[in-house]
């Protein structure tokens, strides 16, 4: 069976050995490939599952996607204990070591620049949710919940939607202010699309889904800051995830070339006059 090379991350050489039983996707052990002063962390995967056609089909299979994503994350997470890895996107596959070496040669300047920028930093994820609306109708007798007429019905519907709008605006203002405070403590910021609660299975509406690049040395302070805000606003929930390898800061849009854009972006969020919240969508 033909084997391909699945690559998890690129790192600078590190001294601490990887865990002996560290397995990657498809259960094969992770290995290191040194080239041009960089290290690619790889494992072999069967071509039958990772050739382009097979991969396209597999990616629509939730169980396969979940298992592959968790295995990928497992290797990257193990790397974060010994170095600062530059994580690659899911399912980055090469035909053989020689193709992998050519890629490293072609991209080595990018890799070094990103590795320098991320060295000693981690990513923290912060999500803000508007909690599901309490249902006053449930507390009332069933008869009272039934509108007496069409006009009553329309009025109560208007009132409900007005209250909902106010709650939404309050959540947006909170997310905006929290994001401003967190961005001040972070070196960089990425806004992910708010998550759909049907997909995440999380109660409430996600109004902010952000990632912050924070030096490891300042992480405790950052986490404390998030913790302190948790009880600030009733009806709003804040969730922290991490520390992650800097996935959100390794993509195409990352790097020195968009530093100005990122700066301008965080500037907008600290401006209280701006009506739009950060990454806020419905």
């Amino acid at each position: 069976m033909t084997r391909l090379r699945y690559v998890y991350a690129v790192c600078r050489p590190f001294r601490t050995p990887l865990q002996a039983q560290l397995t990657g996707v498809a259960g094969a052990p992770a290995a290191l490939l040194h080239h041009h002063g960089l290290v690619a962390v790889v494992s072999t995967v069967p071509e039958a599952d990772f050739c382009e056609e097979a991969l396209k089909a597999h990616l629509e299979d939730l169980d396969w996607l979940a298992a592959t994503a968790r295995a990928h994350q497992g290797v990257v997470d193990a790397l974060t204990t010994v170095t600062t890895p530059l994580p690659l996107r899911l399912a980055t596959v090469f035909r053989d070591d020689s193709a992998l070496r050519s890629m490293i040669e072609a991209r080595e300047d990018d890799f070094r620049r990103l590795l320098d920028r991320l060295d000693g930093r981690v990513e923290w994820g912060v999500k803000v949710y508007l909690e599901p609306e309490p249902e006053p109708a449930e507390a009332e007798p069933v008869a009272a919940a039934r509108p007496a007429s069409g006009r009553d019905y329309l009025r109560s519907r208007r009132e409900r939607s007005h209250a909902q709008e106010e709650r939404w605006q309050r959540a947006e203002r909170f997310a905006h202010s929290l994001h401003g405070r967190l961005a001040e403590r972070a070196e960089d910021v990425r806004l992910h699309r708010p998550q759909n609660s049907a997909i995440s299975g999380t109660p409430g509406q996600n109004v902010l889904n952000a990632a912050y690049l924070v030096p490891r040395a300042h992480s405790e302070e950052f986490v404390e800051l998030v913790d302190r805000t948790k009880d600030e606003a009733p009806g709003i929930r804040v969730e922290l995830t991490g520390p992650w390898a800097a996935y959100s800061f390794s993509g195409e849009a990352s790097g020195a070339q968009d530093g100005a854009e990122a700066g301008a972006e965080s500037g907008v969020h600290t401006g209280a006059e701006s009506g739009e919240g950060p990454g806020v969508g419905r």
Partner: protein
Amino acid sequence: MTVVERREIALVDLLDRLLAGGVVITGDITLRIADVDLVRIDLNALISSVNEQVPSPFEEP
């Protein structure tokens, strides 16, 4: 400080990072995964899997 529990990572949080983040490699490789609209694919997969287990929220209780 309150210690933040490290529960099992939610798949959506992972996919936000693994499908939208990470270094994208293009060029002399077997796969051009960047060409695939992964976000759409994963959302379709997730939505269809959710729909199998969860009744539609639009149905009357």
